[in-house]
């Protein structure tokens, strides 16, 4: 079936003419019609525009072969998280705060996908303003896990992961501030890459925590993640934190030879609350990599236990500042008041959901006079220590491998009443955002009953996406977890 194709296969078949972009796009849209009523991954879909873009891709292929040769993703539909600006489309961040906001421009990652020939299709569900680990914070219907519709798909890019797992799209874009690509990828059984901070321009990404946010792909395998990263990465003058480093052609031709690579296992991640099924899958994956010639060694990341506290202080502080822009005046929801203060406060009360309010209040508190040094500045210093832990570890290993999450996908409602417990579920992913590393999650097994996917996380030093992609690719050459799909 056309909706089963990977990005590489789909692009190859459009190129050789064995399928048209129109057929491919129709297959995705039909699949969405068939299954999205169950998973609720798609918030908005403009079919007419999708077919117009597909027709244009087909025209370019037949009439402009030289141009087509420069477009590696020509004709391939890619789903977009509702946090990324796509010109002429709604941009709501799964919130009521933005009202009927319609984006006047394309963010850089979207513009680059278009340049590569891809078709940015649909707005995908998420936790409101990317704050959450379960998709239950969507102001619309929460997205559900295609493997078990009573469980969460993870978050915040839950719609992006559920859409790939449900085979609505060959790939999607998500964003990762503390694990928001990798954790839902693990829960839904897809591959999710968080690039190094600064690798992909954040222009056109609605900011949650500016020193953490990164855009990245959710795909069926590491090869596709490399293809999409290659299309969207690279320096952008519109984002002053985007790093002036060239994109790496190694992402296009992954090398599964991992003989002699040194892989670190952080001893602090062997935690008592770790589900035994997770530990078993982790050990089994290490055995596989070791049999392929990788050397497994223990490393220490001594400040791991402080990562969650540090992360929630810094990201809520940044969020409280970033979300000040939603004031009811320039765009989005407005509830009138007789003075600007009342208008701002009423609009924000009506527009933001409970988790967003919680984080804005918390962030305002840690930045407020008298507490800023004790919380915010202190956390920035602990962030330095966490970054140094990784630098030290990467002095002796090429990559670090951990489970992506401490448990498989949890039940809807299981953690939503206790914010702290929800925050603790991000324990293995947030350190990489604090340190600015890159990381990928790949499927590494299943629980028995119910059958739920598990994720393996490969963390690499900053700007070594080639390393994590190669290890993930090597692992996928030896396993077939990533080739299994849920029945819907």
């Amino acid at each position: 079936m056309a909706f089963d194709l990977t990005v590489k296969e789909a692009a190859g078949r459009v190129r050789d003419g064995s399928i048209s972009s129109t057929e491919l796009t129709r297959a995705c849209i039909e699949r969405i019609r068939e299954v999205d009523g169950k998973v609720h991954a798609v918030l908005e879909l403009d079919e007419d525009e999708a077919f117009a873009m597909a027709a244009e891709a087909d025209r370019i292929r037949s009439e402009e072969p030289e141009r087509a040769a420069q477009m590696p993703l020509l004709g391939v539909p890619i789903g977009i998280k509702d946090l990324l600006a796509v010109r002429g489309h709604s941009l709501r961040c799964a919130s009521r705060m933005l009202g009927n906001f319609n984006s006047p421009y394309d963010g850089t990652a979207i513009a680059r996908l278009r340049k590569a020939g891809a078709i940015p299709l649909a707005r995908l569900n998420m936790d409101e303003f990317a704050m959450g680990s379960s998709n239950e914070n969507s102001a619309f219907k929460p997205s559900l896990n295609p493997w078990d519709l009573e469980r969460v798909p993870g978050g915040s890019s839950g719609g992006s992961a559920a859409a790939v797992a449900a085979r609505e799209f060959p790939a999607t874009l998500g964003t990762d501030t503390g694990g928001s690509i990798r954790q839902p990828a693990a829960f839904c059984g897809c591959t999710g890459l968080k690039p190094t901070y600064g690798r992909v321009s954040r222009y056109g990404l609605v900011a949650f925590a500016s020193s953490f946010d990164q855009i990245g792909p959710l795909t069926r395998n590491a090869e596709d993640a490399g293809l999409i990263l290659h299309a969207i990465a690279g320096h952008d003058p519109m984002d002053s934190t985007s790093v002036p480093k060239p994109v790496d052609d190694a992402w296009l031709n992954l090398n599964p030879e991992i003989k002699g690579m040194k892989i670190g296992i952080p001893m602090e991640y062997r935690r008592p609350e770790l589900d035994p099924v997770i530990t078993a899958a982790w050990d089994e994956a290490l055995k596989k990599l070791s049999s392929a010639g990788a050397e497994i060694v223990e490393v220490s990341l001594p400040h791991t236990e402080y990562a969650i506290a540090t992360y929630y202080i810094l990201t809520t502080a940044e969020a409280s500042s970033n979300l000040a822009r939603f004031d009811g005046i320039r765009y989005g929801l407005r509830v009138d008041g007789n003075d600007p203060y009342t208008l701002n406060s009423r609009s924000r009360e009506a527009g933001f959901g409970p988790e967003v309010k919680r984080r804005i209040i918390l962030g305002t508190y840690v930045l407020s006079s008298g507490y800023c040094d004790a919380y915010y500045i202190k956390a920035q210093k602990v962030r330095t220590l966490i970054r140094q832990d990784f630098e030290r570890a990467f002095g002796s290993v090429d990559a670090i491998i951990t489970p992506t999450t401490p448990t498989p996908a949890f039940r809807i409602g299981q953690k939503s009443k206790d914010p702290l417990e929800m925050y603790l579920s991000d324990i293995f992913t947030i350190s990489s955002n604090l340190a600015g590393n890159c990381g990928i999650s790949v499927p590494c097994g299943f629980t028995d009953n119910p059958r739920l996917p598990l994720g393996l996380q490969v963390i690499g030093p900053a700007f070594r996406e080639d390393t994590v992609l190669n290890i993930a690719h090597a692992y996928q050459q030896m396993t077939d977890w990533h080739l299994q799909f849920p029945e819907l």
Partner: protein
Amino acid sequence: MAGTDLNIEYIAQLARIELTQDEKDELGQQLKAVIDYMDQLGRVDVTGVEPTSHPFPMDNVTRADEPGVSLTNEEALRNAPSSSNGLFIVPRIVE
């Protein structure tokens, strides 16, 4: 440094959110637990440690000072809840 002195009323005012009384009660309780958890950072010795504000700090990033294309007035106002004569409309600020 403890969650018990969280003045939710004052913080909500700083954050420009008009919380209901129920929200204040619930948020106050939830955030006390979160802040107590955060207080564990008090145990970390950070003597002589520099703060990190960005993983890869890049200072004074500038671009060439050349005029470029930007949104038109009409495009910039298209999403405004209230606008007139090419301007955002806000409640009266000064009498």
